[in-house]
């Protein structure tokens, strides 16, 4: 589970979110979100998943229907299919960047580029974004090749059902990634101030940790921190529930849930926060780091770390190891994202795993290519905003309402403690019943009014940048595809319920843990 949670969110998305949302202001809201949203939702998701597993349901529509005997329940669960599908598509594309940068490190392709402008130009060149007068380092087909390869590996892993093998490999790979991250963090912290910049790594840490309340009144900062907590813990994605559906009543959800969250947070706060931002501030200054962060959801790590590697002995091999392990960590996460979707088609339509995986792979290929092709028009940022941030919050709102309110707080609390040797502090019963849902609804309302509506009306881009008229058709198409996914999954869920003769008011029959009915 920790292998699933630790991924690109820790080392690539977190630094960018922190830098783009005010550093210290972001961290204050981040920790509030961790305690009031992340940890409670981690337990809730494991609880929802294990309860669904008792009825042989590995997907959110089925899990919700098992918890709340109402026709609406299954439709609320549809968000648990749309979000992982959308996120997996663009996540795989980002994952392919890590594979590409591992290759570029090995071949020392970026060696000699040490300025902010140069590294961004290099990154844009790889992304096939051509600017007037900009230097071209790569063929336009390069990002397509890496994306195709990465997607093929993901789908192959999923189709062969060898994600168990990947998880076993993760038990070796994750400690190596942690070790490498510790080494890099030490290297970054001891970097000398760079000529012409004058900033030190400590200024990077100061930027992140200086208690700063100047942007705490911005709803976008609260949503960004909540979105990051969800993304990094894989909460609101549907995958934790799918994995938890295989747990028995004897398993300790409480302790496993907190261990997963804590491991991920150590990777993110202690290591993720000590590498990319201090390095970016050292080489490009605070303003430069923030400018890179505003440029794209995942750019900071790719524009910064190659500069660090060039300063180190055997830096290219360290680069291969770093980006290679990130690629590996990404695969464990992206494969898990399609797990609930595969579970849905296997359980409700009797599809074979391999067949489902390759069909989904074809869909990912078509829409993933759009991300590769139209990245410069904000196509990916739009999905990261609506699916990777807003969508996760919606899933969380629905599941906390269904589990804690409709299933009832007492039954939910008892369900979480089945097989647990550790008790959740009683205060969290109040938090999970009232604070978490109200917190979620409050930020959704506040953020919706001040941030989402202007974005929806094209008054600003999802990345926060001003809207360029040329981008609007691509942004509209990007949103249209998410709506299309929603319609298609709603139809599939309706068809599945009719086909299998489920009665919404009666629910499902509980099955025992050994596989019998």
């Amino acid at each position: 589970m920790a292998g699933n949670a630790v991924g690109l969110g820790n080392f690539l998305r977190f630094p960018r979110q922190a830098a783009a949302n005010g550093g210290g202001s972001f961290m204050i809201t981040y920790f509030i979100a961790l305690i009031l949203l992340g940890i409670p939702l981690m337990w809730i998701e494991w609880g929802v998943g294990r309860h669904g597993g008792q009825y042989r349901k590995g997907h959110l529509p089925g899990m919700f229907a098992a918890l709340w005997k109402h026709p609406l329940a299954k439709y609320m669960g549809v968000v648990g299919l749309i979000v992982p599908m959308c996120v997996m598509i663009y996540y795989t594309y980002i994952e392919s960047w890590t594979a590409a940068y591992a290759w570029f490190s090995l071949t020392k392709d970026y060696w000699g580029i040490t300025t902010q402008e140069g590294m961004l130009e290099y990154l844009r060149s790889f992304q096939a974004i051509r600017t007037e007068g900009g230097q071209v380092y790569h063929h336009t087909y390069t990002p397509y090749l890496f994306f195709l390869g990465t997607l093929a590996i993901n789908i192959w892993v999923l189709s062969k059902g060898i994600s168990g093998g990947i998880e076993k490999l993760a038990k070796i790979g994750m400690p190596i990634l942690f070790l490498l991250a510790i080494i890099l963090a030490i290297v970054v912290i001891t970097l000398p101030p760079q000529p012409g910049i004058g900033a030190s790594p400590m200024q990077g840490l100061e930027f992140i940790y200086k208690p700063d309340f100047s942007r705490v009144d911005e709803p976008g900062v609260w949503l960004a921190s909540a979105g990051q907590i969800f993304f990094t813990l894989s909460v609101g994605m549907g995958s934790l529930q799918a994995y938890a559906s295989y747990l028995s009543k004897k398993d300790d959800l409480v302790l496993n849930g907190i261990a997963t969250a804590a491991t991920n947070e150590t990777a993110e706060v202690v290591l993720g926060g000590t590498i990319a931002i201090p390095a970016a501030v050292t080489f490009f200054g605070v303003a430069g780091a923030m400018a890179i962060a505003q440029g794209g959801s995942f750019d900071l790590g790719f524009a910064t770390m190659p500069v660090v590697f060039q300063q180190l002995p055997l830096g290219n091999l360290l680069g291969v190891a770093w980006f290679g392990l990130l690629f590996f960590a990404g695969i464990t996460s992206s494969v898990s994202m399609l797990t609930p979707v595969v579970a849905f088609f296997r359980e409700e339509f009797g599809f074979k795993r391999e067949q489902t995986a390759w069909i989904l792979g074809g869909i990912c290929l078509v829409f993933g290519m759009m991300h590769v092709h139209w990245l410069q028009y904000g196509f990916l940022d739009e999905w990261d905003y609506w699916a990777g941030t807003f969508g996760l919050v919606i899933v969380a709102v629905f599941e906390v309402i269904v589990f804690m309110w409709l299933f009832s707080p007492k039954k939910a609390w008892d369900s979480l403690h089945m097989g647990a040797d550790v008790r959740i502090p009683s205060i969290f019963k109040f938090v999970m019943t009232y604070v978490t849902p109200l917190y979620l609804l409050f930020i959704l309302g506040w953020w919706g009014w001040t941030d989402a509506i202007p974005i929806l009306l094209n008054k600003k881009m999802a990345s926060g940048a001003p809207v360029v008229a040329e981008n609007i058709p691509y942004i509209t198409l990007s949103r249209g595809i998410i709506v299309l996914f929603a319609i298609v999954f709603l139809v599939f869920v309706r068809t599945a319920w009719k086909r299998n003769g489920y009665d919404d008011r009666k629910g499902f029959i509980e099955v025992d843990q050994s596989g019998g009915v």
Partner: protein
Amino acid sequence: MSTGAILFMAFSWIFVLGLTFWSFYRLMNLQKHHDPDGIGPAVPPVKARTE
């Protein structure tokens, strides 16, 4: 670094590291660790029935 930043950083690190060490200590000692491998059951799940 300012005193405020040092204190905030120390608090953050102690919190996440403390939680990690505590939870893994309990997991190792209670021997209740269960890490689902993500491959699902050996055979396709049995279709659920309605009552």
